[in-house]
Every structure is written in structure tokens, then in C-alpha cells.
């Protein structure tokens, strides 16, 4: 912009009064390429335009079974027949994560999607969602999302329209696509597949590459070795009595983790005497490791040797008959080189697998090399597990070249135009490829993305992508079930999907709906129904019933197994890491995944289950490793490998293998948005094509600086007094015994707690109608964190930021308490390994609530159905209730946490729940809005509330179904039955608070009759009453 011009006559001309007076705002506006970029700052008319957008989504809405597939934006002048203002509607849709579609049901309130829950019909969800996928709602309303098409020319950004891109892309692609390359993420979507084919046939000279930082390619490669085809392993853990997980965090880090969690915990019902046994070998400490009955910590590079040991024991000790074709691989197995513990572990595993032939499952994680997967296939078959607890399907993987090939092509100047559809390769491509440099060689580059991220900023074109909840799409579940995704709302920021962009590129410009619909039609999924009926019911269900792929049985490929055998020597030859040559392991982040959710406040603030770290990644290591490497908890260290270095704070926790250092991927974003920028350090900078999952011998040097991680629980590193007392208390809080002891004496848990007779200070309330209760099964809880995000979404729980978490002011209504348990006699400075126990902790709704008694203004009161209710508008904020809460579950609004929210973010709020103001106490309400909703419905229908009709958000999403809720006054209810269970106990019962949340004791199922850590119930006076307690 040119400065003010002075004409000859001396008159000034100005464009506006602002310009004349040169206000700072004006100067600022001139500097920015896009004035009015802030969607929130649109003039008041935006309410109307918003309603128009809403109108469109209403038009989409309709009855779930008979949607009106209109695409035009029409004013919402007439109410559609089925819509009642204020009554939420639910739509089935899906999200594709890691190339696998996950079905969900989204609650829509007056056209605004406000909450994502699992689709009970969907095989990978079964009604649950992970913490990450539940946070999609927040991502959709993220004000930092890209709002316009941008073209970068000569170092400057210009705002463009889709029409302008359409013109430009025509010339970019040419006639036959020569010099055109497409880089996309691997996808299971049939429509994507169709559009790829359409693109490739329209531009036959183009080439197609695929890249995602987190894939199951190693497993596919292992399957290809074993069977000659990249089959997919579909475990059926409900069939398994013995599960062996080798570096496989299948409860958290697996595309079908929700289903596997359900199957795994369903197989751990001690009362039905079906209790599976979990063996885990892993380099770091994971949620799966925490659930293990026997866990051994081994470096990532040593897991193969361990499996070799298992194989050797099966052959040598148990003389298992191996398939002939696999002999070449089996012969490689040997227990040589295993440490004492590892060797013993391998022998025990083999014995247990043999004892449970056809009922076992050997699982190998995605970080392990292909040959490992091949060997697991062989052993599973030899044990008779194949077809029962382990099945294989042919997911029809489409061949594509990888990013290394693309970089080679780019560097060879073979690519003039590069279309990057989704993903963020500049950020997450292997560092040795130097993708950004290669990208610059392409004349034209286009990036379709939800945010203007690292990749978008260096591409010529940036296209805003439509969010998953704004788009039509499809995909296949892990077992192959055909899954449909439908938009909940018209794209907020003018985005389009990958398939739409491909359609635009080939000149068809079809709408997403038409593409998905026609793919559906072409697939012949209608069966006996008419196509329209089939489509409608598929949309209603969110999936096509019975479309799961059939399990296949294939003979072994001798050639492939020979390759595996050839590779095996090198695998087991990797030496154990040591202080001078540690091992750096990359782990998939349980929150921000590959980094794509870095700008999501819910996820950044979610405490990672084992470390309770928020807003950061860290270098995780065991205490002895830290000691031997001369490091301390909180030291900022420089990790150097493959010519790059990053700074990471050290976090010490018991459990990781010696000298195996773990770091989560997905942090250190530079263009994630306001929330995610600069959070943590990017481990991708150390990751190379060769070392995708681990690096041997990185240099770790202390920077001499310290860094405070925002954790929600104190570290285990603690003063001696605190440590000792905690050790004493954990046994009371989280009751635990071996299965054998429990079966021998089911009352064992009640002997763990004795106290004098309890006398109430006042007359206790008598309940005539309902009184609610909850039971949390610690035997099922895997610490997946899904309940925390569910609660946050349902109850408008604010995000407070790293600084406030450091101040211990996080607001989560439900939290996951994590305790480490070490054998008695192990001192504070001798710990290297520990058992982990999780305890979801929320307001336990004490019947004799200490908080209610002390509130001076009676802002917290008992309801007629036994809840301990918070009256926000009465609360003056003395915080006395929080002080007097023995569970410390009350949360105080120290600031107005909603003050600076963008208008668009406010649309996420659940209108059924008050948004709390500053200075007010809040806490779990048992989702009272859900209770009231059912109460009103049942009242209108003049019927009692049936058991299971009310589900709080945490219970709804729990993949392990660990949370039970219901009416304690109904003797037939599930919750009443759970109170009778001998595993049921109340925490801090001796305070006579009569909590309404009871816990179900945890059981471990060690092999044989060894009870390493179970000393039996503590000493107690038998004249004292037992700790059974019922509200």
C-alpha cells in the first residue's frame, strides 16, 4: 500500500477517515493481506447468515432415515416437519483415522453438532469413542481453521476463490497429467478409491503417492511375507484366554482399539469365571502394559528376540508341530542372548499358550518389523489360534508408492504439479527426505488442508478442507464394514473434501454426496432392498449391515517366509541398549495422534494416563536409566540423532525398559494454530525412513536447564514421607487381589477395610422414588481417558491452558488417578519398575456430603433423587466445599475461562448445561441434564424410568463398559446387583460419607499360583465391622 499522496495542489486524498488520522487499527489492517479475516468480527448480519447455514444443515437433517439430499443453501423459513426446537437429534456418521473408518453418532442441537459419541452398531466403536475422536467436535469449531483459498505468489499471499482455483488447476494438470503427482494419505474409503481411479484414467501420466506418519504398513508387509498378500489381522479377543502383546498397545494404539478393549475386558469377568491373562512385553509403559498380568520391559529392538525365545520354547519344550512351509523361519528361533528375566518370561508365555491352545492370541505391534508379524502368524497357526482368536481379512489394499519415491521424483524434476490432499508432510515426513526442499522443486503445489499448516504455508495453493463432520464420505472399518459419513452442518469455512477436489480436478465437479452415493450404488450393497431403501438405512445406521469382510485362510508363502527368515538374524542381533548407547523409541501420541489434533485444547489438556502430562511431550525413561545417564526428572536435555536435535524435558516413571527412551510424536507444531503452536518438541525431526520407530544410540546431553512439565498429579518422585504414606493408602483406595485369592475367598476385599461403627450426625434421608448410584469396575478400566473428554464435551468443561494446569487448576470433572505400586520393601531410590493402577475419580455424590454441610449459602444441596447438586447461581465461591471434599473433585472457576472464546467456539456448548461463570464451584453432576431428559420423557409417557435408560457421558463412551449407572432403589437394576458383588467397595468409607460411587476391586490373573505382590488382606481387628458400605 502506498503512503498518502500529496497532490500538487497540496490537497490530501484519503480513502477513509481512518487513513487520514492513521489509526493503529488502520495501519494494522493495511499490513494484513486479508482484512476482516476474523469470522467472528463479521457485522451483526452474521447471525442471519449463520441461520442460513443452519437452514442448510436442517435441510440435510430431516428424519435420519429419509434425508433430503439437497445441497443448496436455503433460508430456514419453514420448520421441517420432524424438527422440534430444543430437542436434540442424532445422526450416524464416521471419521477416518489411520486409514480406518470409525462410526459415530453425533448429537445435533438446533443444527449445531455438539457431541460425538460412538455408534453402537459399528464394529470398531460399539458405542464408544476414543478421547481423540470425541474431540473432533471442538476441532470443527476451531476458529484457527483455514477460512479461504490462498495462492502464494512471489512471497505474498492472495485470497482466491474456488472458481479461481478451478481455472488454475486446469492448466496445472495439463491434458494427460504428465508431470503431475498426487500425495494423499492411505485411505479405506471406496469413494476415494473410485476418485483415484477417475483421476488416473483422466490423467494417465500422473502418479499417485501415499504417506501417513502412522500406518500399519509393517503388519501388512509381514502378512505379505507370510501369505503372499497384505492381509489384515483382525483379532477376536473375546475368544482368547491368553493374550500375548509384543510391543502392541492394542488397547490404545490400534485402529480397532475400542472393539479390542471391549473384547478384552469382556473376557475379564471374574464373576463369570472367565478371566483371560495378558502378557505384555514393551519398551515403554503403556495402558496395555498397565493392564498386564505379567509385564516385562524390553527394549524395542529386543522384542524380536523375545518372540524368538517364545518360538524356541514352543518347539523345543513343547514340541509344537509347525507348518512345513514355516520351518525355515522357525529354525531361526532361539532363546540365545535373552536375559534371565526375558528367557523365563518367554518360557512361561510358551507354556501358557500351549496350555490354552486355540484360545490364545499372539499380537505384534505396528512398530515391530515385518518379519515379527510373519513369525506371529506362524506361531498363531501352529497353536491353533488362527480362525478363532486371530483371523485375517483381505482389505484389498491398493498399491501406491511412498513418499520416498515422491521425493526422488521431485528431486529428479519429474514433478511439475504436486497435489497434496490432506496430511502435513512438511511437518511429519521422515527428516532424511528433506521434503520441504524437494517440494520447492515442483512448479505448482497445492495443499488441501483443514488448517493453513506447515505444508500449506510453503505450497503455492492452499485449499480449505471440509471437516469430517461437514462432509460426505465413506470408509471401511478394520473388519471391512462399509461405513458412511454424512455432514452435520454445511461447511463453516467454505471447505471441500478430498473426493470433491479430485472430482474438481477431473472436471466433473461432483458434490460429495453424489460421489458417495454413486460409489454406494456401484458397490452392489443393496441386496434385496431397493437402492434408495438400502441407502437410507445405511445412512441411518451409519454403516451397511453385514458388510464386514469374510475371514480368509491362505496357505503360507514359502518364499515370503524365507525372506522373513533371512531378515531375522539382523533383527535379533540388535544389542540391548546401554547408558552410552540408549534407544530412542517413537510412540504415537494418545492425544494429538500424529500431530493433526495439536490445536485441540481438549486433547492438549488431557492428562496422558500414565504420566499425567498435559500440554507437552517429554523424554520418558525409567528411574535407573535416568540415574545411570546422570539425568533427573525435569532436566531439559538435547536429543540428537540423524543430524538433527531437539530439546525435551526428562520425565521419569517406573516401567520403561532400561535405556529405552520414549518420545511421543505429534508435538512441536509451528503452524498448528494458537493453541498448538510451540507445544512440545517435534520428534519427527529425528525420524528417518530407516528409523521410523526407533533409533539406536541417539546422543542425549543435558542442557543444564530445567523445565517444569504441567502434570495433573505429582510425580512418583516425591519425599519419603509422602511416598510411604501413599504406598500405604493405595492398597485401600484401589483394592486388588489375584483371581485365585478372590475365588477362594470372595469376601477378601471386605477384609481390607475395617473401621469403628459409623454413626450419622443427622437423620438420613429416605428415598422413595429413584436414587442414583454408580459403580466403576477397576478390573475393566484401561485408563484410555475417553471418559474425560466425553465429560468435557457434555458438560462444557473449560480448557484452562498449560499455565493454569501448572497452578493445579485443571477443570476436569472426572479425572484418572494413577498410582504405581511397588512391592513392599522396595525403597524410594530402588524403584525401576512398578505395577500401575488406574482409578477414575469423579464426584462420588456422598450421601452424607461434607461439602453440603459447610457451604454457608446452601449452594450445594441434596436432590430428591440423592444427588449432590451444585446450584451455580447461588454459589458465592468460598471454596469451603472443595476444601472439605475428601476426594478433591470440586473444581473452581478461578477466572472467567470463557471470556476470550471465539464466537464460533461457543457454538460447541451443550445448551442443556450452564456455562459457569467466574468465581463459581463446579463438579460432576452425574449428567443431571440426561437424567432430567429421561425423567421428562418417561413422565410424559406415564411410565417408570427403565434400567439403563440413563447413561452419563462417561459411562456412555467407556469402551470397557467399566462405568455402571442406575437406580439403587430398584432391586432389579444392574447397579443394585453390582452393589451385592463382593468386589464392590466404597472408598474412604470410614469417613461415613456414604459415597454413591462404588468401585469394583481389581483382579490380576498371574499364571500358575504365583502371587508375587499379593500379601493377602492386611491385619485387622475382627471385632470391627467390615468395610461394606451402601448408600
Amino acid at each position, binding site marked *: 500500500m502506498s503512503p498518502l499522496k500529496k497532490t500538487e495542489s497540496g490537497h490530501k486524498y484519503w480513502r477513509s477517515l481512518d487513513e487520514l488520522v492513521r489509526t493503529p487499527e488502520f495501519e494494522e489492517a493495511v499490513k494484513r493481506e486479508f482484512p476482516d479475516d476474523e469470522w467472528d468480527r463479521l457485522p451483526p448480519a452474521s447471525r442471519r447468515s449463520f441461520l442460513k447455514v443452519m437452514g442448510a444443515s436442517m435441510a440435510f437433517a430431516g428424519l435420519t432415515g429419509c434425508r433430503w439430499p439437497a445441497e443448496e443453501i436455503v433460508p430456514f423459513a419453514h420448520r421441517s416437519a420432524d424438527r422440534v426446537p430444543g430437542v436434540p437429534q442424532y445422526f450416524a456418521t464416521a471419521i477416518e483415522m489411520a486409514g480406518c473408518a470409525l462410526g459415530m453418532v453425533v448429537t445435533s442441537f438446533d443444527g449445531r453438532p455438539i457431541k460425538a459419541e460412538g455408534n453402537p452398531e459399528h464394529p470398531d466403536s460399539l458405542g464408544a469413542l476414543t478421547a481423540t475422536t470425541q474431540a473432533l467436535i471442538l476441532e470443527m469449531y476451531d476458529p484457527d481453521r483455514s477460512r479461504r483459498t490462498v495462492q502464494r505468489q512471489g512471497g505474498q499471499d492472495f485470497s482466491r476463490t474456488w472458481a479461481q482455483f478451478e481455472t488454475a488447476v486446469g492448466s496445472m494438470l495439463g491434458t494427460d497429467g504428465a508431470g503431475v503427482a498426487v500425495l494423499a494419505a492411505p485411505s479405506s474409503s471406496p469413494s476415494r478409491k473410485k476418485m483415484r481411479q477417475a483421476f488416473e484414467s483422466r490423467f494417465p501420466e500422473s502418479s499417485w503417492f501415499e504417506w501417513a506418519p502412522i500406518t500399519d504398513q509393517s503388519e501388512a508387509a509381514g502378512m505379505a511375507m507370510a501369505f503372499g498378500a497384505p492381509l489384515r489381522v483382525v483379532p477376536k479377543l473375546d475368544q482368547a484366554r491368553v493374550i500375548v502383546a509384543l510391543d502392541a498397545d492394542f488397547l490404545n494404539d490400534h485402529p480397532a482399539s475400542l472393539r479390542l478393549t471391549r473384547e478384552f475386558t469382556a473376557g475379564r469377568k471374574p464373576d463369570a469365571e472367565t478371566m483371560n491373562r495378558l502378557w505384555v512385553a514393551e519398551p515403554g509403559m503403556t495402558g496395555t502394559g498397565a493392564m498386564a498380568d505379567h509385564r516385562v520391559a524390553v527394549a524395542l529392538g529386543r522384542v524380536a528376540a523375545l518372540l524368538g525365545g517364545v518360538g524356541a520354547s514352543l518347539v523345543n519344550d513343547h514340541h509344537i508341530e509347525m507348518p512345513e512351509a514355516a520351518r525355515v523361519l522357525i529354525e531361526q528361533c532361539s532363546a540365545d542372548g535373552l536375559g534371565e528375566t526375558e528367557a523365563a518370561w518367554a518360557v512361561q508365555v510358551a507354556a501358557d499358550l500351549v496350555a490354552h491352545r486355540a484360545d490364545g492370541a499372539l499380537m505384534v505391534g505396528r512398530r515391530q518389523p515385518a518379519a515379527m508379524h510373519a513369525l506371529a502368524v506362524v506361531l498363531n497357526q501352529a497353536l491353533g489360534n488362527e480362525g478363532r482368536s486371530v483371523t485375517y481379512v483381505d482389505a484389498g489394499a491398493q498399491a501406491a508408492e511412498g513418499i520416498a519415491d515422491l521425493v526422488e521424483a521431485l528431486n529428479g524434476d519429474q514433478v511439475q504439479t504436486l497435489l497434496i490432499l490432506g496430511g502435513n508432510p512438511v511437518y511429519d515426513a521422515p527428516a532424511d527426505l528433506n521434503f520441504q526442499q524437494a517440494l520447492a522443486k515442483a512448479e505448482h503445489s497445492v495443499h488441501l488442508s483443514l488448517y493453513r499448516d506447515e505444508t500449506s504455508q510453503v505450497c503455492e495453493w492452499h485449499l480449505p478442507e471440509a471437516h469430517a463432520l461437514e462432509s460426505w464420505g465413506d470408509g471401511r472399518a478394520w473388519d471391512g464394514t462399509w461405513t458412511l459419513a454424512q455432514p452435520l452442518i454445511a461447511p463453516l469455512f467454505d471447505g471441500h473434501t478430498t473426493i470433491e477436489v479430485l472430482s474438481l480436478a477431473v472436471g466433473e465437479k461432483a458434490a460429495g454426496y453424489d460421489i458417495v452415493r454413486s460409489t454406494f450404488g456401484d458397490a452392489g450393497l443393496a441386496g434385496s432392498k431397493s437402492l434408495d431403501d438400502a441407502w437410507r438405512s445405511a445412512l441411518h445406521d451409519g454403516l451397511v449391515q453385514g458388510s464386514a469382510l469374510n475371514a480368509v485362510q491362505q496357505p503360507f508363502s514359502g518364499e515370503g517366509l524365507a525372506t522373513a527368515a533371512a531378515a531375522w538374524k539382523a533383527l535379533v542381533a540388535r544389542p540391548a541398549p546401554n547408558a552410552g548407547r540408549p534407544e530412542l523409541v517413537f510412540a504415537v501420541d494418545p492425544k494429538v495422534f500424529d500431530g493433526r489434533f495439536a490445536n485441540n485444547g481438549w486433547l492438549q489438556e488431557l492428562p496422558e494416563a500414565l504420566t499425567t502430562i498435559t500440554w507437552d511431550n517429554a523424554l520418558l525413561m525409567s528411574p535407573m536409566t535416568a540415574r545411570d545417564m546422570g539425568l533427573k526428572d525435569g532436566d531439559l536435555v538435547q536429543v540428537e540423532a540423524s543430524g538433527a536435535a531437539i530439546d525435551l524435558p526428562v520425565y521419569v516413571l517406573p516401567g520403561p525398559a532400561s535405556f529405552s527412551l520414549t518420545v511421543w510424536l505429534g508435538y512441536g507444531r509451528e503452524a498448528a494454530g494458537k493453541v498448538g503452536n510451540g507445544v512440545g518438541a517435534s520428534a519427527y525431526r529425528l525420524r528417518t525412513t530407516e528409523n521410523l520407530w526407533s533409533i539406536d544410540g541417539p546422543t542425549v546431553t543435558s542442557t543444564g536447564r530445567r523445565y517444569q512439565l504441567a502434570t495433573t498429579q*505429582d510425580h512418583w518422585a516425591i519425599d519419603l514421607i509422602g511416598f510411604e504414606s501413599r504406598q*500405604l493408602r493405595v492398597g485401600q483406595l484401589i483394592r486388588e487381589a489375584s483371581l485365585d485369592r478372590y475365588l477362594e475367598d470372595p469376601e477378601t476385599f471386605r477384609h481390607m477395610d475395617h473401621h469403628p461403627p459409623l454413626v450419622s450426625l443427622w437423620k438420613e434421608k429416605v428415598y422413595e422414588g429413584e436414587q442414583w448410584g454408580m459403580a466403576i469396575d477397576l478390573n475393566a478400566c484401561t485408563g484410555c481417558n475417553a471418559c474425560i473428554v466425553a465429560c468435557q464435551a457434555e458438560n462444557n468443561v473449560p480448557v484452562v491452558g498449560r499455565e493454569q494446569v501448572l497452578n493445579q487448576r485443571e477443570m476436569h470433572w472426572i479425572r484418572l488417578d494413577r498410582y504405581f505400586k511397588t512391592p513392599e520393601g522396595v525403597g524410594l531410590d530402588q524403584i525401576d519398575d512398578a505395577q500401575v493402577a488406574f482409578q477414575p475419580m469423579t464426584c462420588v455424590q456422598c450421601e452424607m456430603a461434607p461439602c453440603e*454441610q459447610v457451604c454457608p449459602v446452601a449452594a450445594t444441596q441434596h436432590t430428591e433423587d440423592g444427588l449432590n447438586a451444585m446450584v451455580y447461581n447461588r454459589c458465592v465461591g*468460598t471454596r*469451603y466445599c472443595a*476444601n472439605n471434599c475428601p*476426594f478433591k473433585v470440586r473444581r473452581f472457576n478461578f477466572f472467567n475461562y470463557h471470556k476470550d472464546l471465539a464466537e464460533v467456539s461457543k457454538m460447541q456448548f451443550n445448551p442443556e448445561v450452564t456455562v459457569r461463570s467466574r468465581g463459581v464451584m463446579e463438579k460432576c453432576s452425574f449428567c443431571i441434564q440426561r437424567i432430567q431428559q429421561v425423567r421428562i420423557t418417561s413422565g410424559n409417557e406415564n411410565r417408570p424410568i427403565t434400567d439403563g435408560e440413563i447413561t452419563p457421558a462417561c459411562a456412555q463412551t467407556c469402551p470397557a463398559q467399566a462405568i455402571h449407572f442406575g437406580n439403587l432403589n430398584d432391586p432389579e437394576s444392574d447397579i443394585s446387583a453390582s452393589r451385592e458383588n463382593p468386589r464392590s467397595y466404597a472408598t474412604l468409607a470410614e469417613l461415613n460419607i456414604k459415597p454413591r460411587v462404588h468401585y469394583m476391586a481389581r483382579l490380576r490373573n498371574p499364571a500358575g499360583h504365583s502371587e508375587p505382590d499379593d500379601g493377602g488382606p492386611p491385619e485387622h481387628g475382627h471385632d470391627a465391622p467390615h468395610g461394606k458400605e451402601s448408600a
Partner: protein
Amino acid sequence: MSIRTADLSYLNNTTDDPVSRPPLVLGGRTFGDVTNTVCGIVENPRTPPLWYVFFGLSLSLLGVLGAMIAYLIFTGIGVWGLQSPVGWGWAIVNFVFWVGIGHAGTLISAILFLLRQKWRTSINRFAEAMTIFAVACAGIFPAIHVGRVWVVYWLFPIPNQMSMWPNFRSPLLWDVFAVSTYATVSLLFWYMGMIPDLATIRDRAKHPIRKIAYGILSLGWRSSNRHWHRFESAYLLLAALATPLVLSVHSVVSFDFAVSIIPGWHTTIFPPYFVAGAIFSGFAMVVTLIIPTRAIFKLEEIITLRHLENMAKIMLATGMMVGLAYSTEFFMAWYSGNAYEGFTFLNRGFGPYAWAYWIMVSCNVIVPQLFWVKKFRTNVVLLWIASILINVGMWFERFVIVVSSLSRDFLPSSWGYYSPTFVDVLTFVGSFGLFFTLFLLFLRLGPMIGMAEVKGVMPEAHHGRAAHGDYHGDVPTDHDGQIPVKAKREVVQ
């Protein structure tokens, strides 16, 4: 005056002579002397420059207090260091600290009055004023520490459109009643006791504004027999009324903690322990203030060394009580067999807040042991330093109780560590600004010594005064009742 520098030993009246009762007013003062000395401070047209220095400082600190409160109210409680699990921090510590200080005044005026401790007369006005100002400081904290200050009136049982009563089960509500009653009665007691003295100032006033102001304040006091009769009955009644309040207010404050279920709070020893602590800290504060005041305003003859020594003895006694309470708590924590309780006390002594605990023990238990020795009791400088240390220790006592108990309660997952922010610190420092501003204004504008009462314990007030043994012969006075300097010298010699 050269005479005083010549020999100051007459100021030491701490020697106990079994034959004669030691005089409470030294220097052979007459009634007129007392009036002149006390009123002189108020009437002196030239304010001592030192007063301006202190007042300026206090006013600045008061400004800091105002700024911190404004910042707090506009931003939120989050500007303090509070968190989960420590929901109460410096604000409540300061509240209990100031309330505790506010104990000495009423104790001196009411309980010592009923116990006929005549030595109280020289210090009671001063201590009462300190009480009022300390309670004013204390009152600020519970009011501003709530999350929504604008509805803090809901704590009072005011009839309202919501038909809502406050929760009478809550100790915080009892606190509201206890502290407000105590503040009201203390104020009345202080003011009522001051009326005859205010009338004296009125009578001596020359400037019309002073005449009117003190005239209004003295409520038409004419010093008639009937007035005196009613005054003394009322004073006695108020003393009787205030006496249980002295004990109740800090008992109720301690209920805030004792009635809760938090280990370290939930203990029956708290009411007597808190009251003893309050008297302890109250006397410490009186000593801290009175030593510089008597030096600056040259009141050594009225506020004598014996007064200070007596207060040191009380501090010794109450300090021992507090020490006993500390050890009883530890004993009970062990003897009860309650694991939580046991941990809490171990944690206090040796956990992350051990530093605070040992500051408390050193200041409150060890420092007062000095007062076994008379030499230390009568050493003004040492006494002053010790009293300040006791104030520090008593602040830390409340800090230890409030913060260390909360920081580690039942669930180890929720343990935390609380640190104050600059706002916490400056608010506390600022509250001293309020206290000293009020106090300095009182010193300058009000009768800081109860003239009427002091005169009541002087030998002249009694028939057969020779019996007291402190009669030094007839002293010539001028018509104002003042002793000529020459005569005074004679008396001294």
C-alpha cells in the same frame, strides 16, 4: 530535658517490694499531668515529622491494598496462588492472623477489668484501638476471598426474594456472626470507654471545628455523677458481655477448621488452642506497637516498664499453652491410631512445608522462653524483637494449619503444593497499610490512653492514699493542676 537524661532509673518500676505496691504511674504525675500529656499529643498543632513519615508509608501501603483488591475483583481469585487442593491460602491465614491480634484489646479491657488488674488502664485504650483496626483488617479477607464478591451479602440472613436462608450448619456462617458480633461489641466498648476522654479534649479544645467534632463524639458528656454512675454500670455490663466473646470469637473461627473432615483440621483441641494463640499474638502485637509509641510520645511514665513486663509474662504463659497444644496434637495424632492424622503431623514436621512448621515452633515456643528471665523481660529492645518474632510465628501457625493440612489430605493423587503470588503477598502487606493508617490517625486524633481510667488507679483517686505507700507528700500544683517543673524535680529526687 536534662533531668531525665541524668537519671532514668526511676522509670523502672518492676521491682517487687512486699511492703509497697509499685506505682502504675511514675514521675509523680498528678491528674493534670496525665491530662496534659495525653491531650497534649492530640492538641499539639505541630505533628511530629516522624508521624508524617509513617503515615505516608501506611497510606501508600493502603493504596497497594486497594489496588490489589481491585485487581482481584476485576480479574478473579486466580490472581492468588490458590488451587486444588489448597482452596484457602493467604487470605484465610491473614484473616485468622488479624482476628487473633484483635484479641488482646478486648481481653485487656474486659477480662482484666473484671479481674481487677489495675495495670491494664495504661494500655487498654491502645489495645482496644488495635483490636478494632485488626478486626477491620480481618474483615476484609473473608469478604474478598469469595469468588463472587458482589453477592457476598448472601452470607447474611437478610430476608430476600429467593426465600433463601443461609446454611446454618456451616461454620463459615457462624464465623460471620461471631466476627461481626465481636467487632460490634469491641467497637462499642472502645467508643464508650472513650467518651469521658473525648469530653476532656472537647473541653480543652480552642478551635471551633475541634469543639464541634469532639462535641459530637463525646455525646454530651458532662461528667456529672449520674453520668459516671451510668457509665460505670454500662462499662461493667459491656465488659461482662465482651468477656465470653473474647473466648467465643476465636473458638468459632477455629470451628471453620475443626468442624471439617480434613486431617489436621478436624480436631477438638482447636477452640482453646486458637484462643490461647490469639491472646498470645494479640499481646505480642500490643507490645510491638506500644514500645515505639511510648518512646516517640514520651509516655514511659504512664506506660511503664512494669506494664511491658506484665505483658511479657502473659506472652510466656500463652506461648507455653500454644506449645502444649502443638505437642498435644502430635501426641493425639499418634495415640489415635488414625493413619491420616498421623501422616498429616509427620508431614507438617518433615514434609514439604516443614520449613514453615519449624519457623512456627521456633518463634512461638522457643522465643517466649526468654521471658523466664527478668532481665530479658525488662529489656525493651529485646522484648520488641521477640514480640515481632512471635507475630511472625503466629502468622506461620495459621499458615501451617490452613495450607499444610489442605495440601495433602486423603487421596495422594490430589496432593499439591501451594505457593503465593505477588498479589497474595502485597494484599497482606497492604493490610498492614490499612491497620497503620487507622492506628496513626487514632494516635494523632484520639486519646490513646484512657485518662479517666489511669487517674482511677493513681493514688490521688483514693481515700487514705497513704496506705498505698506510694505517696510522696503534697505536691504543689498550679491552677491547671499541673506540677511545675521545679516541683517535679523535687518529687523525683
